[in-house]
């Protein structure tokens, strides 16, 4: 696919999504009510992705304050929905409703995985936040989709964040050790080939056992930002350059932005992520004037637009910043590189705690 073809595909997805969410038969109460007060009809004015800028930024409070039923498209109103949560250190966490998106997202992601490192039929283990998160179902679906089963070890990041805020580092380490003990026991005694975990937990497992020596060949990782040096450490030392490290960037609201693991080393371990276009789009914007897209090679704030029949979310400002990177032959649209917490250079952000 050429960049132009990718752009046409995206524009078509935008038109289709807008038609769906703003038509009374298929749209959801939230967007239909919004359109009534907006003073313009998105179905008439949104012709492609460039027009998305006419929408205001999607506010994360809406996912906290609005009832979930208001985001249910009329076309799905007789189907029970899944409720997925994000973050949530204090108060009510953000919630998103969903049906099949996670399956589509992870099947699409599965197509990018190497059969050599993520063998078909191989079992998986997920070590990380499960509970009300989309990941819990998504990783199991991924394992099943590739013909394997999935083991789980849970970690509650909300508790870890509280411990860190209270400076109870010893408790945080003890909790992590408790999680690790469970993970290591399963890895040692079950036939597991692939793992999903967070970078810190991966390093922590590697402190206790040699990961590749226990049969693991592929590691799909996500959850927090990683510096190039940290990615290098994970690939070369934790995975001993024997298992493949596959960093991803994503959340409950987007799906998965993928990287190109086989090119990590030649890129000095600077990771570029490509959104699962056309279902979601990432744009690097000027933090002070978000209508402006930053130039290639520049840092800016990450803006996410999600475009599926289950969920329409225009111009959501992520709490991250990243470098705008050029399209790749494999993914002919903009990438986002060296993601880090927004404002990381000017303030302390509790991130990457698990």
């Amino acid at each position, binding site marked *: 696919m050429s960049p132009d073809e990718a752009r046409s595909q995206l524009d078509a997805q935008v038109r289709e999504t807008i038609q769906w969410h703003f038509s009374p038969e298929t749209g959801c109460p939230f967007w239909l009510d919004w359109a009534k007060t907006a003073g313009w009809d998105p179905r008439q004015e949104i012709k492609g992705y460039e027009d998305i800028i006419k929408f205001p930024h999607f506010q994360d409070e809406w996912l906290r304050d609005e009832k979930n039923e208001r985001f249910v498209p009329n076309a799905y109103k007789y189907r029970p929905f899944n409720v997925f949560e994000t973050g949530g250190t204090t108060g009510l966490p953000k919630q998103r409703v969903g049906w099949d998106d996670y399956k589509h997202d992870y099947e699409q992601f599965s197509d990018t995985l190497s059969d050599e490192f993520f063998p078909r039929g191989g079992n998986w283990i997920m070590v990380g936040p499960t509970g009300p998160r989309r990941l819990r179902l998504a990783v199991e679906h991924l394992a099943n989709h590739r013909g394997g089963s999935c083991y789980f070890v849970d970690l509650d990041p909300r508790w870890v964040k509280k411990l860190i805020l209270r400076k109870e580092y010893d408790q945080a380490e003890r909790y992590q050790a408790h999680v690790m003990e469970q993970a290591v026991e399963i890895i040692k005694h079950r036939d597991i080939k692939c793992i999903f975990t967070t970078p810190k937990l991966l390093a922590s497992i590697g*402190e206790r056992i040699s990961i590749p020596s226990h049969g693991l060949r592929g590691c799909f990782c996500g959850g927090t930002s990683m510096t190039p040096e940290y990615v290098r*450490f994970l690939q070369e030392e934790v995975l001993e350059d024997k298992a493949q490290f596959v960093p991803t960037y994503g959340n409950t609201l987007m799906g998965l932005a993928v990287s190109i693991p086989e090119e990590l080393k030649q890129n000095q371990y600077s990771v570029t992520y490509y959104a699962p276009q056309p279902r979601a789009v990432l744009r690097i914007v000027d933090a002070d004037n978000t209508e402006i897209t930053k130039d290639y090679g520049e840092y800016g704030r990450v803006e996410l637009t999600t475009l599926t029949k289950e969920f329409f979310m225009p111009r959501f400002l992520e709490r991250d910043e990243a470098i705008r990177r050029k399209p790749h032959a494999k993914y002919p649209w903009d990438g986002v590189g060296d993601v880090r917490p927004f404002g990381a250079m000017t303030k302390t952000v509790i991130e990457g705690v698990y």
Partner: protein
Amino acid sequence: MSAPHIPILRQGRVYKSLDVQTVNRLGSTEAAAEISFACADMIKYDLQKMGQARAILKAMKSEDLIEITKKAGEIFLHDDLPIGVDGALQSPEDYVLSLAATSGLPHSLIRMNMKRLGGIFGQIDTIFRGLTRGLDIAVLDKGYGEQGGSPVSFSASTNELAVILPSNSPAVNALWIPSIAMKVPVLLKPGREEPWTPWRVIQAFIKAGCPPEAFSLYPTQHDGSGVIIRRAGRVMLFGDDSTVKQYEHDPRIEVHGTGYSKLLIGEDEIENWRDYVDTIVESISANSGRSCICTSTVVVPKYGDEIAKVVAQRLAEIKPLAQDDPEARLSGFANPKFAEWINEAVESGLKSGGATDVTAEFREGERFQERDGMNYLQPTLVRCQSFDQDLAIREFLFPFASVVECPQSEMLDKIGPSLVVTAITRDMDWINQLFDCATIDRLNIGNVPTNRIQWDQPHEGNLFEFLYTRRSFQIALSA
């Protein structure tokens, strides 16, 4: 010379990180060094393998390590040594210039500190004897032996001595140098502006024949330091009173904090106070007043005003000069904000009443000065009416002290914890009380500046006892 790249050393193995930070020359945007930064998890991994480094040192003869240490001292002082990763060499003069460029220390003070460090290497056998109370060093090779006719056995309590180094005082590297002869590898976290001294000491040891595996150097961020503190077997770190308090019950950690060192003159010697002015001035101002062994309080039974005036006059002669001026004795601040904060703290103490800045009358200009793009604080002597005044017992990173009058009989109750006390007296009753005073760490009797210390005696803890545990043992005759 272009800015060298200071890499991470992982048991002697050079590792160039992708996380590189630049340290500029003070007051300039020109890079003085590029520094590889280690991530915290890498340090966790490496700490697990420190047993390998310890095994290498353990297999060597202590006698040989003593000789290597002595040789390393000469090399440190006189040789060109590798700097960075590109095969460049650093002469002793290059070292002085590099350290001056990032730390704000005048060349003369750096040379003085170099000499002091050189002395530590050279006196290693005396230091070992002093710290072990005469133990035959071969006992560390065999694991057991005799001392004073009794059987003794010592085992290392750790595979590494980790040191979180500050940026403001190269001489603190003296604290870890003897660890090598004691067969315990070191893991150093350099201060951001001062990678130069630990790097050069390490290179000197390696050139002298020490196995490189004995040395790990991790420039790292706060989380990396946290890992070192939480996980290393033995840790030395430098901090203020709150840091000391935080770790006071952790036997793995030795915090080198404020010293609150004091100079006391007894009633029997106070009439001769003019004979001790040189000692007082040196005690306050040596090493630009930055050491915990510098006097921060002078306690006298009378003549407080007269003593303060004469000492202040002498201290006021110490001025900010060009870094390469051989007469320079005052350091600039690598972090310019520090000078402002400290100055504000002194001013606030003065405003609270009961204290007078006696130096103000003699010095040129304000206490806070800017010169050549650096901030300086001119020496300050305050006359405090009592120990209740805020500034009576305070320690700052520049030549600062208070003079307080107090009857000799009350001095030991008032002075509080003191790293060094110099007591100028011949009064045997009082000397006996001084020896009995539990809050004095190091005691000098007579006309000895507080900053002159013998390294064969414990300094804020005994390094040998920190690194080794004496175990009980018996060997059956039939064995």
